[in-house]
């Protein structure tokens, strides 16, 4: 029996109900990512879903499979149609509640029910024509099929359609002279504005300004409109008494499971939309292989999602990097010039782990990521400067707290620690911390200016941000295991502008 499109385990669902934003979110800029993900979907209150890490591999795979189905645009487009209709439906019901004039109230309600029936039927039909593979969707499809074939739903749908059809066919005419209005049925009189358009047709050029006045259409009616509607009801009495009865009988029409689905599915849709912005810019996402217990990690052609959002908005290119740990490798130590992508790399690795652990695809061409129990981050904080403890003491206090919480399944991310003391002290303290990390055997990313710790032992992988060799002012934002080599001055500028002989031959259109 279908329960939820988002949670395979009830325990995860319970967690999500009381979830608050995890502390490391701001360090890793995941808060910004989640803001972007949910910015157009406030009404669904999606953030708690993004705050909740899943407990086991099965629950993650349940989501991965559903997300894969939704990456099929045929399916996501259909779900979006459903979402639009459900949203409009909620608007209509709100309108019905607010208005006081009887025939208006009843009509907004009827239109809401019509949208609901249409949304459910269309979705049922759409899903049956599209190939779906995930356990979650297959079970939801079965639920929908049973529901739309139930008597309750069928009779609701038939009645709604008949009434809508009757109302839409009504056409009437008003003859206005002075203060007198006559209301009558329409008798095929011709549209006068068409005649005017035909006369001036020969002057028609490109499109011109639209002179139609936009009337501020309030949903309620004034007494003249109400009077006219009463007369229309008198011209068509059967239709309007049927409307009265429909309203009286159908107040509890919506199905709870379907309404919950409408909210939960937004988790996936928001992520699919989010990924598509990047994909349009030539970047990749992949479904990471999830393991529980393995220390192997890799992510190729990956990037920082939060920075990526900004770069895309500014129409700037995003630089991808490769990260991997194999064998006994556990710790990335990242050094190199400032503003070169070091902190970005640390955040990227944190984000990779987090999004993998909530069942989402991650930035990159391929990735393997483990389930972690705790994300432990150390980033410099402005506010701690006012603290009674000195900066160095605060650093030690915080890192000690993190080390005490850490288990071999934790992920630790350290960004520029011990920057407020002498180099000698910083080296000493860093080595001490590093030894504890070795003992814990956990995965760690450490951004530092202390080159010495990059070569402490075989668990450490040294990576460095890089610059254009002949122009050290220019950052490449590449963080790599090895530096690259340079080019002669004039040719390297020509290459930068793609103006060498070979490049030009490719560029000029024949």
């Amino acid at each position: 029996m279908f329960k939820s499109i988002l949670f395979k385990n009830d325990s995860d669902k319970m967690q999500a109900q009381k979830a608050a934003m995890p502390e490391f979110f701001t360090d890793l800029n995941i808060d910004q990512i989640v803001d972007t993900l949910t910015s157009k979907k406030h009404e669904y209150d999606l953030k708690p879903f993004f705050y909740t890490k899943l407990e086991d591999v099965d629950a993650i795979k349940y989501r991965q499979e559903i997300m894969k189905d939704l990456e099929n645009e045929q399916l996501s487009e259909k779900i979006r149609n459903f979402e639009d209709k459900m949203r409009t439906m909620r608007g209509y019901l709100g309108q019905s509640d607010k208005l006081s004039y009887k025939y208006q109230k009843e009509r907004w309600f009827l239109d809401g029910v019509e949208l609901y029936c249409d949304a459910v039927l269309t979705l049922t039909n759409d899903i049956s024509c599209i190939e779906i593979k995930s356990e979650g969707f297959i079970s939801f499809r079965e639920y929908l099929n049973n529901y739309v074939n139930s008597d309750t739903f069928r009779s609701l749908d038939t009645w709604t359609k008949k009434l809508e059809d009757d109302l839409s066919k009504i056409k009437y005419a008003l003859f206005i002279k002075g203060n007198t209005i006559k209301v009558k049925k329409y008798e095929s009189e011709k549209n006068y504005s068409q005649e005017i358009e035909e006369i001036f047709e020969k002057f028609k050029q490109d499109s011109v300004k639209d002179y139609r006045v936009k009337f501020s259409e309030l949903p309620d009616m004034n007494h003249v409109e109400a009077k006219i509607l009463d007369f229309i009801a008198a011209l068509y009495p059967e239709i309007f008494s049927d409307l009265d009865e429909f309203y009286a009988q159908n107040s509890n029409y919506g199905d709870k499971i379907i309404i919950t689905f409408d909210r939960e599915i937004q988790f996936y849709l928001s992520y699919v939309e989010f990924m598509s912005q990047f994909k349009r810019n030539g970047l990749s996402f992949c479904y990471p292989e999830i393991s529980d217990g393995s220390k192997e990690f890799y992510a190729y052609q990956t990037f920082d999602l939060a920075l990526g959002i900004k770069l895309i908005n500014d129409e700037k290119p995003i630089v991808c990097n490769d990260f991997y740990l194999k064998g006994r490798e556990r710790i990335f130590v990242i050094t190199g010039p400032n503003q070169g992508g070091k902190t970005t790399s640390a955040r990227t690795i944190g984000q990779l782990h987090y999004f993998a652990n909530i069942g989402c695809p991650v930035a990159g061409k391929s990735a393997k990521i483990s389930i972690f129990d705790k994300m432990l981050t150390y980033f410099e904080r402005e506010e701690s400067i006012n603290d009674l403890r000195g900066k160095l003491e605060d650093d030690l206090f915080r890192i000690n707290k993190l080390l005490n919480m850490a288990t071999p399944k934790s992920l630790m991310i350290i960004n520029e620690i011990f920057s407020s003391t002498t180099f000698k002290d910083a080296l000493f303290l860093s080595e001490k911390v590093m030894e504890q990390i070795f003992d814990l055997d956990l995965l760690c990313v450490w951004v530092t200016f202390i080159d010495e710790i990059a070569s402490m032992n075989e668990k450490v992988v040294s990576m460095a941000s890089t610059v254009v060799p002949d122009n050290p002012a220019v950052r490449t934002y590449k963080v790599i295991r090895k530096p690259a080599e340079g080019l002669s001055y004039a040719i390297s500028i020509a290459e930068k502008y793609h103006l060498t002989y070979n490049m030009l031959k490719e560029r000029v259109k024949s």
Partner: protein
Amino acid sequence: MKTFLMFRNRDFDLKQPLPPSADYLVQDLELNTLFNAMSSGDAFIFDVSKKTVLLSLVYSDPILYRQEILKDCIKNPSTIRNIYALAIEGIESEKKTYFGFFNKYPDAILHSSIEVLNLFMGTLKKIRKIADEESDKFESNGFKRFFNMIKTELTDEYFEIIEDHLKELEFKSGMLIGADIGSGNKGKNYIILKPNEKKQNWLSHVFSKEEAYTFTISDRDERGAEALGHIKDMGTNLVANAVAQSADHILNFFGMLRNELAFYIGAINLYEQLSKLDEPVCFPVPESSDERIHDFDELYDVSLALTKKQKVIGNTLNLDEKNTVIITGANQGGKSTFLKSIGQSQLMMQCGMFVAAKRFTANISNGIFTHFKREEDTKMNSGKFDEELKRMDEIVNNLKKNSIVLFNESFSATNEKEGSEIARQIVTALIEKNVKIFFVTHQYEFAHGLYEKKVDNIFFLKAERNADGSRSFKLSAGEPSQTSYGIDLYRKIFHEDLVQKI
């Protein structure tokens, strides 16, 4: 109704963006001098002339179409200026009424539209009169078609029908409005209906026997009267829109007439000024872009002539079959002037104008680009070279085969060895991609390297230097030589300074 004076079968779009190369072309070829001469101080004509010159045509048929029309204009300048004045009169009459103002009442929109339409009819009648009286004197297809259209579309009967409708639209005897039931059961799709024929008198509706309900809003019910006014406004909305849009369409017709005549007015102005200087002009022969043709007599720098207000020296050359022309030689020897005249004539030909030469034939280019050394750039060398290549990159983004690129001392912001190598790579690649090139250079290594290759379609020109060091400002065929005679120039300046000091 289309004026079709700029293109045989489409409108001239003033909003079309200029090509990315436009700013460089204007600066490098000193085109503002040309546009100023065309505009005679009229900002609108300046704008249209600039766009027309920079939005080059790339086929000979549309070029010849404009040439024919321009020939008619040069023969009948006062008729053209009269029609242009009427187009402006039409546009101005819109400003005399409240038409076009932002308005939220359809009733007010309707009435101001009727008013402006009445004025428009007056101006259209005047244009008809010119067509009746002057059209015999025009020979071009463009003008023949234009005058014919005026005569067949704007007949006396048509003017009468319009005036009848403008009266009927006042709704003196009541208004019939149709509507459907929309969301929330409110009325929607309000439209004015024309009552069915059988009821001759609109008033008879009120008393007919059909099923109907009538009510009257009492005189004291102000909100009721407001609500009724609102319904009438919603009803009138579409008709008012149709009338106002018709007025806009006619206004656009005047606008289009003005747009499409402005270039020709500009060309007449230029023609008259060059005639006064006794400078020759001719209608060029445009050849296909696949050809390599450049053959001219007394081609001169039109901006230089306009600035100096006198006849200037021109060049007579035949560069047929040549894809690439490398120009070397004496400083102040007329190299840049020649390069400018090549660019100007290409643009003038490809906008359908006459060119500044006694005789001119050239192949059409699919795009015209300039890459001139920037004198004013005083930044450190590395930045300057970077800037040069950045501009080249922008050019290449828009480059197609059979385009033309004019280089003036390009890639010289680095040492000669590196600069020559970059120039060589770029020029070789462009030649292989069938891009036509004129290149003024002092880089001996680059120019000589190409000369040594002895390729048939590369031609070498040299600025002449007389034995006494004076210049003729004419170019002729010649092998690149190692010195640019800059020493002459220094000597001249040094000498002048000396004289001044004494």
